[in-house]
């Protein structure tokens, strides 16, 4: 069995250690004897947009987001949409999450269109949300660190990933954090997210593998270290939000 991971714009959307999500997906597949290949997809003509089983799209600086936004407005955005329709999964964080929505509305000037894969809209906020973020999701909780000024609001087609316990999440108003729509996930969890939230990593792996393989059942891993890092980080979030 093999897994194909695409890292979107690793040269421009790579702050806050989001690379750890790609490391987590790769390692958790390899530990189960699944072959893994990771390819980079950046600005310009994409060689093979039908190749990936799962895309990772991280956060970036404003300058990076402008360039990436412009690139996704062309052929590449359409290719990404088509890939999702073909069964690929996406995991996105912060700036990547925002760019997958309908649009980003800055304080002044025209709004920046997104890819529209997620039924979500982001507006610029006046203050920045910086701190530990603890989220209660239907299956288990999620722990991470948020750092964003955008306020994201979900439409009817996107479901929140979970409810905020500590921190601000999507917009600091409605207690929601993140979005799920089909096999596409967006969230504000840095940390990196997936190493400390292995259940979410495995959910994504299952979705990704299902694109080209039947009835995948992932063998359980020894997650004692993951659990103990989660517990320590959760304790920090509860005591020093």
């Amino acid at each position: 069995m093999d897994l194909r991971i695409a890292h979107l714009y690793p040269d421009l959307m790579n702050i806050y250690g989001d690379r750890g999500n790609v490391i987590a997906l790769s390692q958790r597949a390899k530990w189960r004897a699944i072959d893994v290949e990771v390819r980079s997809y950046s600005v310009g003509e994409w060689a093979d947009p039908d190749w990936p089983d799962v895309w990772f799209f991280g956060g970036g600086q404003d300058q990076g987001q402008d360039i990436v936004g412009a690139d996704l407005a062309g052929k590449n955005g359409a290719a990404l949409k088509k890939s999702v329709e073909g069964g690929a999964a996406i995991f996105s964080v912060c700036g990547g999450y925002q760019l997958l929505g309908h649009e980003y509305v800055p304080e002044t000037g025209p709004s920046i269109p997104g890819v529209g894969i997620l039924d979500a809209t982001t507006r610029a906020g006046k203050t920045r949300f910086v701190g530990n973020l603890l989220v209660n999701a239907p299956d288990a909780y999620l722990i991470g660190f948020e750092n964003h000024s955008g306020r994201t609001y979900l439409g009817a087609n996107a479901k929140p990933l979970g409810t905020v316990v500590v921190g601000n999440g999507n917009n600091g108003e409605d207690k929601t954090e993140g979005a799920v729509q089909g096999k596409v996930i967006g969230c504000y969890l840095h940390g990196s997210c997936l190493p400390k939230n292995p259940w979410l990593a495995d959910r994504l792996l299952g979705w990704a593998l299902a694109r080209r393989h039947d009835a995948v059942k992932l063998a359980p891993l020894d997650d004692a270290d993951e659990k103990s890092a989660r517990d320590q980080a959760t304790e920090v979030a509860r005591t020093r939000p």
Partner: protein
Amino acid sequence: MPDTLALIANAAGKLTREGLRMTGRGGTALPGLVALTLDPDYITELSSGLTHGVICVSGTNGKTTTARMLADITRAAGWEPIHNRSGSNLDRGVAAALLADANWYGETRGDVGLFEIDEASLPGAVGRLKPRVVVITNLFRDQMDRYFELDALAKRIGDALATLPEETTLVLNADDPLVANLARRRDANTIFFGVEDQSVGGTIPQAISDATRCPRCKAPLTYKRVVLAHVGDWSCASCWLGRPPRDVSATKVVLGDSWSEISLAGTIGSIFAAVRVPIPGLYNAYNALAAIAAARALEIGLTEATSALANFRPAFGRLETVELEGRTLRLVLVKNPAGFNAAIGALLETGRKPRLLAALNDRDADGRDVSWIWDADFETLAPTVSHAVITGVRGRDLALRFKYAGLPKERIEVVDEWREAIERAVSLAPKGGEVVVLATYTAMQDLREVLSRIGVVAPFWED
């Protein structure tokens, strides 16, 4: 002579300082905070009369080491630096250093201000200190919960530098595209430094690069050599922006186990001298270049500068060593991905198979977001590690990072208490062996406290 308000602030700060010393608590910036609360212009008042002016040293990595090198160099030139040596690099730290030097009449003994300045505070600080020289070592991603995005920080620094009078000299790293473009004004007085040695660095861009695009036209940058992250021999193929000509450069860099040697050249290419600095690592060669370039801006002779560097003693946690129970602890401060990768590079260059004691904290001074460890190149480090004892407030995140970098379970051990962690790491190393200590800022302070209680190092305020 400082005004009345500054004199009152000075007296109040000094009283606070005396009080703290009598109760055995030194080395805090609290007296500085007291003085600034009474007179927000205190540091401007006291520093404006200094004979040789003020030097500000800033940047993400290397500012402490570069400032210490400059302290030695200015002393070798017969000057008396007022230096915020304990590393408190906000306004209060500058104020505390001035308080410690001034008498009750606000008269300073020192004749040059040498201030390490936190890069986020630099835009405000240069307005208050009116420096004669500003040195900027590099700009990397660091503690993004506090500094936020690097482009925005670089812009703020550039804006602030543009307001300085033309007498101010900017000493800038030509190899860092973000720093090289901080001198916006055409009439700015600049001294650029950089590394020319073609054998230094690779050709592959690094994952943690923070400036992949041209600072002027936003086209992708191309590199002939990548030294570290986005530092190297860069140019823009689109608008032809490139490294500015280097006024002080290293034509050859030789790195040893516990030293680094650089051959210096000036603009006209004539070899000046070879300088041997008794601390290892390419990044310390950069720090030495920055210090020499600053010495030139201050019109201090090269002979004084190089002889001062030859006797340099590093700050606590900057690759220096401490002996404990017949073992050597080599202390490495790590606080951001670029610094981590540079330190790891320096350690592994000599073929070490390190026994590690690693500590990760997430207090304010460390950065509350520990995400950065996932950007750091643990994948290069892990295969060389023979054993790792891990501790700190967020030690379990660090253990997880090692696990995902491929370090086998049996080589990782988490010990929550610092004291026990040190004992455990030392007991695992053979007599005469070395333990490499990797620690974030406050974790290094905790370690120092434990070591000073045992009596192997002095408390940090006596440094």
